[in-house]
């Protein structure tokens, strides 16, 4: 098991870089005063935390797409549901400090003239319960969806279209005020978490580090899954599903396990994301978001795990650059990037490195062997 965990050098390298950079950004923010050369501004802390949440989402997508061949274009639904679970907890923590000063009801419910808390908001005042829901709700949705879709042998582009529809339908539902999730404004005005104000640098660094730990755990879980016999069967399902059936395996149960794990990871990512950006609204369910996440994985290199993290961070660095400097050309840049990667490094950044290494190893063999 230990060899399985550490045998992929690229995954280990990415894990070490994530750990070091995350740690250094936090220390740079807290230990060095503004004005110092080593000081890291607070906005960089939050931005990095956001990137790490995207990286965790991308890892989940890589597990199902890169290894299981399931192209989900709707992973934003799991990310968003995890985010809403955290958002509901943060709303409950506002308590009587809201604009309308109601003891229990969040502002938007008072505004809608609601008299009492809907039953599905119960329990969210507890952190543990909210975190459980952030994993359980995406997990159960993935289980139900996967159970029906895989058993009916829906796959390929048909499955992708259904996942798009799933996230789109969820977005429309959450836009409605009477769903009880704040309608198109979503949930915002958060104040504190676990007794600490969300606006302090310490809290932001704490959330950044929590996101870093989550990414490391996500890498470890995915690595163990793909290195075990489960991973070998999953790869086989990706490459020749019918053949796997004739060997006596049930591909649907393998795909289902992968999808549920992936959805839970996306849920955790969403839950960590919301306190760092300070808002969750139905636009998180927009189909475009899910497609963008798939592009991160494609750019980084699918089926490599390391590539998911690299791709999510790299594409989002570019996105931050473009949307602050040249907002009008971001979508063209994203499209162009996708085309360039597809043409030049079809296996993505990390996949390209792996291929180049293998080629070098093969080329080097005759020199090393007896002449």
């Amino acid at each position, binding site marked *: 098991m230990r060899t399985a965990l550490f045998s992929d050098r690229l995954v280990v390298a990415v894990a070490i870089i994530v750990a070091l950079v995350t740690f250094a950004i936090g220390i740079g923010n807290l230990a060095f005063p503004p004005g110092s050369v080593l000081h890291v501004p607070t906005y960089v802390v939050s931005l990095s935390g956001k990137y790490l949440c995207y990286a965790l989402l991308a890892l989940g997508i890589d597990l199902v797409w890169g290894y299981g061949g399931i192209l989900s274009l709707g992973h934003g639904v799991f990310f968003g549901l995890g985010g809403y679970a955290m958002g509901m907890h943060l709303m409950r923590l506002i308590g009587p400090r809201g604009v309308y000063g109601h003891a229990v009801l969040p502002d938007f419910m008072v505004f809608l003239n609601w008299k009492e808390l809907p039953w599905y908001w119960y329990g969210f005042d507890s952190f543990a319960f909210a975190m459980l829901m952030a994993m359980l709700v995406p997990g159960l949705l993935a289980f139900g969806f996967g159970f029906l879709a895989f058993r009916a042998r829906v796959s390929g582009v048909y499955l992708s279209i259904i996942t798009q529809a799933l996230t789109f339908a969820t977005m429309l539902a959450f836009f409605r005020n009477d769903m009880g999730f704040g309608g198109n404004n979503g949930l915002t005005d958060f104040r504190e978490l676990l007794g600490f104000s969300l606006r302090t640098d310490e809290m932001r660094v704490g959330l950044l580090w929590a996101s870093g730990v989550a990414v490391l755990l996500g890498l470890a879980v995915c690595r163990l899954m793909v290195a075990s016999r489960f991973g070998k069967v999953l*790869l086989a399902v990706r490459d020749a599903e019918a053949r796997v059936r004739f060997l006596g395996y049930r591909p649907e149960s*393998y795909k289902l396990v992968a999808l549920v794990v992936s959805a839970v990871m996306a849920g955790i990512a969403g839950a960590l994301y919301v306190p760092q950006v300070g808002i969750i609204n139905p636009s998180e369910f927009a189909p475009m978001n899910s497609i963008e996440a798939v592009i991160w994985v494609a750019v980084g290199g699918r089926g490599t795990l390391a590539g998911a993290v690299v791709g999510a961070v790299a594409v989002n660095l570019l996105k931050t650059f473009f949307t602050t400097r040249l907002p009008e050309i971001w979508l063209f840049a994203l499209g162009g990037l996708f085309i360039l990667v597809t043409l030049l490094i079809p296996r993505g950044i990390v996949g390209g490195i792996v291929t180049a290494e293998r080629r070098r190893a093969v080329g080097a063999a005759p020199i090393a062997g007896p002449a």
Partner: protein
Amino acid sequence: MTTQQGDTLLYLDGVTVTFDGFRALNTLSLVLTAGEMRAVIGPNGAGKTTMMDVITGRTRPDAGKAIFGDGHDLTRLDEPAIAALGIGRKFQKPTVFETQTVEDNVLLALEGDRRARRAFRFASTLPERERIDQILETVHLSNHRERLAGGLSHGQKQWLEIGMLLAQDPELLLVDEPVAGMTDAETEETSQLLVEINRSHSILVVEHDIAFVRALGVKVTCLHEGSVLAEGSIDHVSANPRVIEVYLGR
């Protein structure tokens, strides 16, 4: 599975399969006894592959019976359940897991618990490794165990797939055109391999290569338009005027 040598292992009776009005199988009946090797020949479109699809649960027949061993109704089971009963299949086009090593291909096929929750295991066990060694030896791939299966030659892929069938250790092997695209030497070795495997397994082999079928020296069934045209020794079948007519045209 408790079938004895000489008992009926596979019993197809009146099996009919229709695709959009086209009768791929037309009241096909075939009986295979345990321990037997049977060669199935027939022109393109005779229904050979569809017959295998019915036996392995990929296609549900419109009518007819398909019974395996002591009373398992194959028309009511799906592919993994039928595989678990002990029917293995080699496809016409060699289908191996190209992105995985030769060793892992055999490992995936080894008999054992197939459930997802039992799959969180890492190293293979000693008996598993010994069995893999033995199988790779049998199919002449011992020197290729670390190679990716996608890099093997066509003939080697065919053998790897036969090796995977051995690993699965099914009671009945369905082998679809095992020597397609092989050299004469490879064909010769494959027929020896099948005879060898037949000592402990029943085999149903579909093949166009009449020389190969003759070399096997087993009972032959000739299919035509979805039903049995002739059955018997290769000499008997190839002397049948209707078989000649079907193969050569009028």
